[in-house]
């Protein structure tokens, strides 16, 4: 079986089974877990600690903590959420130690006037509240699938995400790249529901705008 299939299968296992296998010392299961989550974990850690090598260390420490803490896992969240919560706490601790950590504060976020959000006609305009000229979304229906799923689209998405504020990056990565629910992300990052939503909204909006200008060029 190839690596991708094996790693995908691990996510369909119930948490109980997964943990039982780990406790029994099943190295294959551990390797599959690592294969499936490690790259994401390094990217998440890198948002906090900035340096890739440090992020890798944080992730390694996280795996140790996961193994040593297996007996303490109570199943109040999913196993995946538990792993990522440990990761996020460790990355924060490490960044704090290196005076790099800036806590999630919405007040530090750029406001809407920085061009992150689309523009609409002002109140005195005959079409007040409608899309302003130059901001109207294009139809993507005619974009060929090869372009939609192409390497360039991929690099636009990821370079846009990398340019976001750290808070927005964390939220969009956890929600849209790693597939966590809103509730899981709120718990993991200790964010209120509305702050989570605002961060996600702005992050997605940036990605959408970047894609819209790219697709409209063709």
């Amino acid at each position, binding site marked *: 079986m190839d690596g991708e299939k094996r790693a995908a299968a691990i996510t369909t296992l119930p948490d109980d089974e997964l943990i039982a296998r780990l406790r029994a010392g099943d*190295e294959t299961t*551990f390797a599959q877990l*690592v294969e499936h989550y*490690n790259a994401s974990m390094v990217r998440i850690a890198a948002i906090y600690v900035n340096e890739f090598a440090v992020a890798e260390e944080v992730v390694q420490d996280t795996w140790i903590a996961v193994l040593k803490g297996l007996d303490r896992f109570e199943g109040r969240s999913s196993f995946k959420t538990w792993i990522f919560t440990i990761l996020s706490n460790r990355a924060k601790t490490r960044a704090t130690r290196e005076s790099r950590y800036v806590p999630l504060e919405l007040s530090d976020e750029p406001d809407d006037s920085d061009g992150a*959000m689309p523009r609409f006609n002002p109140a005195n305009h005959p079409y007040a509240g409608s899309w302003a000229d130059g901001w109207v979304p294009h139809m993507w229906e005619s974009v060929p699938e090869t372009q939609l799923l192409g390497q360039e689209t991929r690099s636009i998405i990821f370079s846009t995400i990398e340019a976001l504020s750290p808070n927005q990056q964390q939220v969009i990565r956890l929600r849209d790249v790693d597939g966590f629910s809103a509730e899981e992300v709120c718990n993991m990052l200790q964010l209120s529901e509305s702050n989570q*939503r605002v961060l996600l909204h702005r992050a997605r909006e940036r990605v959408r705008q970047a*894609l819209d200008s790219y697709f409209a060029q063709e």
Partner: protein
Amino acid sequence: MSHEMSCKELVDLVTDYIDESISDEERAKFEQHLTECGYCNAYVKQMHLTVTLTKKLAESDEQKPVPDELLNIFREWKQEQKPH
């Protein structure tokens, strides 16, 4: 009288709409607006597709081999687990 939703208001609510955490009343206004506004229709489709593409293209991300250090960590841990 409840006013109709503007494009700006629709855009502000799109994340709640996609997450299905929008009130019934807002959803009705949102969907009503979509039937009347081609721009917002395109916008919501773009947002859905943005989310889908981010997910899909991330999945095609590098599947790196498992680092040896991690396997060693596992083996050491397993060793410690064994009753003495």
